[in-house]
């Protein structure tokens, strides 16, 4: 039953998208009717896809093993939450989720963007629908989640045990919302290029989508990094793995896009470049999906995969990229060259920001694709080591971090203002003092290079905070409304900049000053790690819903006082017999003590203990970045009101 209904729903969704396209693009129909029916069928697409997704989830919950997807990726014994999230723990289900998010965004466009001129809106809906159409075909023909097998087996094979983790509940959907969010920007950009509306308001229409996608992508990447850190037991937060890089590329172009939109909105410059950035962001999103789904690159994310599907996504990807580039090239507009060129202006600095970000994209893309290129040419098989990425990215980050706090203090057209110069000077002195204090008080022997990077991170944080302080500190009786008027418009961006500073600080600090010990311990043994002492107290078992844990107990002590109990474990899944490592992480202010166990014997254990100072800043910074942009999105109408009122 489920299989039949599911297939029908997908078919109806397909028919709805065809109807949407027909109504949106047939010139003979009058505009009102056109708009009404296009929206109607757009909503139908969403509803049919939504119900098919619910239906698949239901299939997972009741363990209907006549569905091949359910049989391959679920089992009766699995906890309910992993039955629900397991829907996207496999290829078919995750592609259906991708499709669902595409259609949810279509629904949002229809519901929330009514005020945008009809002609642009209809084209946007048409482009978005054609993306949905392509993925619907892909799902129906190569990855149908409702494929049937009879008779139904008694029990399923089960979900990959590494995926049975809370991190999986939100990592893929968040990442997908980010990836797919750029489809909206893509659709709008194509529509704008086709229609070429004479107003420059379009930057305001698409801005919120750029924020939403960026927020989701940031959260998705952060949660993924956090998941790798604690669940996979590797203790690292970024590996420059091809699939990680693939998610970083749209993030970087998305960052460039937000800045470029801001520039275009304020100065009307670089229209084409801004449009190109939205096209690029979605192209990289498609590429990310293609890389994960095709298994073409060797990556820790590679799952057993079918090359046939990779080919399909490659075709979809090439089609949309070529199609949009063609429209882009046909609609290039002459740049307004009359404006004065002032080097120390915000516009120029945003241009530099975009330049540096694009260089990062190119070097990461190159490092990622070089193995494929070399293999095609010489049959040599290589991997590009993480060191390459660190070496090429570090100088770019140095430039970015140095310029980042300066740019928002410049005005759009004039040179420096006295006030901004003074503020930056003071911040610079504070930064230098703190950096020197760190060097003298904490590490007498820190490498100059690390210190430089730490200093830059502090520089970003300090300037961002000072930007938000009242202009005249001695006269502190500023009214709340006064502070709100000044701070609300810049609050979001300063939070994001500061959070980026925190992240850089965490990355540099944790990389430079972490300590790790791999060793063998007997019962009662104590080891010293940094200022902590760790004692091995023996092991016990813990019985979970579909697994048994072999827990190894430690006491963490500092200055002979017990700080915490820690219990890393080996997790044995009853059905599959799989073993996973469960790390134990104890936080101590911004630091982590991180333990994983290897071999556990009656007499001894193998254990890996790490001390990671300030590592929490990495994710804290990431989440704060997402928060800052959400802040900007949520208070957008207010902010626009304030800036319009105070425009001088």
């Amino acid at each position, binding site marked *: 039953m489920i299989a039949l209904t599911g297939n029908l729903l997908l078919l109806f969704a397909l028919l709805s998208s065809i109807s949407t396209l027909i109504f949106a693009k047939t010139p003979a129909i009058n505009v009102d009717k056109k708009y009404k029916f296009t929206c109607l069928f757009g909503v139908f697409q969403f509803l049919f896809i939504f119900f098919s997704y619910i239906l698949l989830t239901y299939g997972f919950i009741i363990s209907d093993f006549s569905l091949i997807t359910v049989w391959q990726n679920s089992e009766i014994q699995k906890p309910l939450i992993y039955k629900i999230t397991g829907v996207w723990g496999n290829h078919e289900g995750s592609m259906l989720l991708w499709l669902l998010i595409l259609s949810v965004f279509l629904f949002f466009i229809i519901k929330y963007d009514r005020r945008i001129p009809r002609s642009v809106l209809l084209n946007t809906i048409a482009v978005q629908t054609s993306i949905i159409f392509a993925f619907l075909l892909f799902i129906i023909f190569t990855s149908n989640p409702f494929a049937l097998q009879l008779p139904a087996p008694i029990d399923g094979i089960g979900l990959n045990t590494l995926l049975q983790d809370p991190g999986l509940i939100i990592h893929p959907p968040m990442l997908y919302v980010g990836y797919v969010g750029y489809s909206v920007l893509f659709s709008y950009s194509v529509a704008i290029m086709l229609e070429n509306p004479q107003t420059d308001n379009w930057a305001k229409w698409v801005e919120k989508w750029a924020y939403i996608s960026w927020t989701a992508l940031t959260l998705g990447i952060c949660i993924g990094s956090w998941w790798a850190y604690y669940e996979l037991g590797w203790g690292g937060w970024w590996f420059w793995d091809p699939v990680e890089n693939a998610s970083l590329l749209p993030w970087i172009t998305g960052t460039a896009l937000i800045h470029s939109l801001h520039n275009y909105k304020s100065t009307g410059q670089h229209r084409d470049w801004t449009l190109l950035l939205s096209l690029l962001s979605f192209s990289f999103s498609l590429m990310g999906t293609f890389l994960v789904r095709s298994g073409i690159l060797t990556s820790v994310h590679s799952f057993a995969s079918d090359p046939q599907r990779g080919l399909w996504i490659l075709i979809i990807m090439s089609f949309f990229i070529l199609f949009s580039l063609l429209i882009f090239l046909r609609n290039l507009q002459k740049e307004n060259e009359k404006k004065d060129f002032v080097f120390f202006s915000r516009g120029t600095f945003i241009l530099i920001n975009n330049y540096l970000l694009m260089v990062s994209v190119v070097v990461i893309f190159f490092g990622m694709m070089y193995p494929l290129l070399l293999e095609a040419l010489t049959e040599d098989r290589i991997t590009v*080591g993480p060191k390459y990425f660190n*070496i090429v990215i570090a100088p770019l980050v140095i430039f970015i971090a140095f310029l980042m706090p300066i740019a928002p203090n410049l005005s759009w057209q004039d040179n420096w203002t006295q006030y901004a110069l003074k503020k930056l000077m003071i911040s610079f002195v504070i930064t230098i003092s703190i950096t020197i204090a760190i060097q003298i008080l904490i590490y007498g022997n820190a490498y100059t290079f690390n210190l430089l990077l730490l200093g830059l991170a502090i520089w970003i944080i300090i300037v961002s905070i000072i930007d938000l302080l009242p202009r005249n500190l001695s006269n502190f009786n500023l009214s709340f409304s006064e502070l709100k008027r000044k701070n609300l418009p810049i609050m979001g961006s300063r939070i994001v900049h500061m959070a980026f500073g925190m992240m850089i600080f965490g990355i540099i600090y944790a990389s430079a000053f972490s300590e790790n010990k791999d060793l063998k311990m007997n019962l009662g043994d104590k080891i010293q790690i940094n200022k902590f002492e760790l004692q091995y107290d023996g092991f016990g078992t813990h019985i979970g819903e579909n697994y048994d844990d072999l827990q190894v107990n430690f006491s963490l002590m500092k200055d002979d006082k017990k700080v915490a109990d820690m219990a890393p474990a080996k997790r044995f899944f009853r059905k599959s017999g799989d073993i996973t490592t469960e790390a134990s992480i104890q936080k101590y202010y911004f630091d982590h003590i991180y333990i994983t166990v290897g071999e556990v014997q009656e007499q001894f254990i193998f254990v890996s203990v790490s001390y990671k100072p300030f590592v929490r800043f990495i994710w804290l910074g990431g989440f704060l970045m997402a928060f800052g942009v959400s802040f900007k999105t949520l208070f957008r109408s207010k902010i626009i009101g304030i800036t319009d009122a105070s425009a001088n």
Partner: protein
Amino acid sequence: MTNKVKRLYFYTTATLLSALAVGLVLIALEENIIYFYSPSQIDQSAATNLVRVGGLVKNGSLKMYNDLGIKFIIEDNVAEVSVTYNGILPDLFREGQGVIAEGKFIDNIFVANEIVAKHDENYMPKEVYEALKNK
């Protein structure tokens, strides 16, 4: 200076910097690529750089010796490579299954500093799959 000249300076600088970046990238790449070999392809005396060796973990070859030391053999039905590794093995490391080790040859023994982990027990690294297929 006119605007045109200013812009020209700006974009010329950007181009020169890009060229510099390309140079640095190529140098960084040259020094940080890691070649992959199957046991039968490798010339042990020549491979003193960091390399990756991939194949199957030979059945019955896994031995633990003092402390965290581990020894095993990677094979591809033609040749074998003895590997030593100091540290904790990934959970999906099994005898008879695919593996990739990263490290250097020291006195004809491959000293691994990393055993590359994977997400999925059914997944065979592409390099290993093709290395075995060609034998």
